Each structure stands twice: as C-alpha cells, then as structure tokens.
C-alpha cells in the first residue's frame, strides 16, 4: 500500500465558488496522478467528469494529467481562461 501524502489544491473562478474555498488539503496515496484530483474534490456541486479544457499546474508550472503527486505538492486546476 502506498504511503499517504498531503497536497494542496488551488481552485479559481467557478470552481472556487462551487467548492467554497480557494485552496484545499487532500490526503492521497503517493504518486496519485494530477488528473485524479478532480474525483477527490468535496461537495455535490462538481458531479461527473472534469470539464472540457481543464488544465493542470504543479508547483506553479504547467503539467500534464499523468504527473505524479508527492508530499507537499501544490496542484492547481486551471479552467479555460478568459482574461483580457
């Protein structure tokens, strides 16, 4: 059985509003892929699969859904952007 780790999840825009927090701590097995974080978000406001176009950042840099998480990592769920 994998060692448990604690990671921080950053949330923005409608995700932040739906969860009711801009950051969460999650306890997950070491090596959990970034793309699996969605399924661990709390609340009933986020049913089903991740939205189309969701991207991920790991420790403030872009990453891919398969990247493994380790103790103390910070992962951000980045919805399609709309600045400008």
């Amino acid at each position, binding site marked *: 059985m994998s060692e448990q780790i604690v990671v921080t999840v950053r949330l923005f*825009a*409608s995700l932040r*509003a739906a969860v009711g927090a801009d950051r969460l701590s999650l306890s997950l097995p070491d090596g959990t892929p970034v793309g699996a974080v969605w399924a661990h978000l709390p609340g009933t406001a986020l049913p089903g699969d991740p939205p189309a176009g969701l991207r991920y950042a790991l420790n*403030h840099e872009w990453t891919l859904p398969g990247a493994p998480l380790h103790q103390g990592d910070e992962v951000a769920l980045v919805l*399609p*952007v*709309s*600045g*400008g």
Partner: protein
Amino acid sequence: MILLTAESLDLVALVAAVFNSEHGGTATFVGTTRREAEQREVVAIAYEAYEELARAELARIAEEAQARFGAAIAIAHRTGRVDVGHPSVMVAASAPHRAAAFSACRFGIDELKVRVPLWKQMIYIDGAEEWVDGRDRPA
C-alpha cells in the same frame, strides 16, 4: 514590466517602461469593460488570477515578443472589479520600426487571452453574476 494589480492601470507608466532610444515606434492596446455582452447589459467585470502562474506566463509572452519581433513589451492586467468603461488590460510594445511594434502589441494581447490564467466574472445590471471559465460546457 509585468503587472497584475487591483489598482487602476496607468498607460503612461506602461509606455515609459518600454522606452528605448533605439526604438522608433511604440504601439499600445487598452482593453476596457464593454457595456454589452451577448445582448445583456453589463455593469462590471470581476477578474480573478492564478497569480503565480499568470506572472510567469506573462513574462514568457514578453520574452517571446522580444525573440520574435525584437520588441520590448509591457503588460498590465487588473484583478478585482472593473466597471464599464474602465481599463482591464493594457499592452505597450516598442520596436525599431512600427510594423514590429504593432505585431508585438497584438501578439501580447492575443497570447494573454489564450494562455494566461485569468478569469472574468460578468456582473449584469439585473444583479446576475456569471463566470466565464468553460464550466458550462460539459466534457
């Protein structure tokens, strides 16, 4: 110069930031909150940033503008509430000649809109609020 701020934007400061006596042209773009969106009346847009990555991505855009166009570029974007008619984003680009300055300025705003983790929340005159972040489009 890369700036994410909850304060009013200053175009003069942005132009000064790209001043170079070897550059003969400076182009600027100012984006403002428009009163109408999809036939609804808007009173303001609220912007939220993933600040760490937004700053890094804006800095990369500036480096790319330098490499592609030989331009110096400065970009400033608001966070928080921006009322109708007020600027939410400014880009200034200077280059030896005007064509490269225009190209770099356009590159800056176009890349910002697709790459930089910033989101807008529309605030309508009827009090409704709506995030523009793709969550209404299922996978």
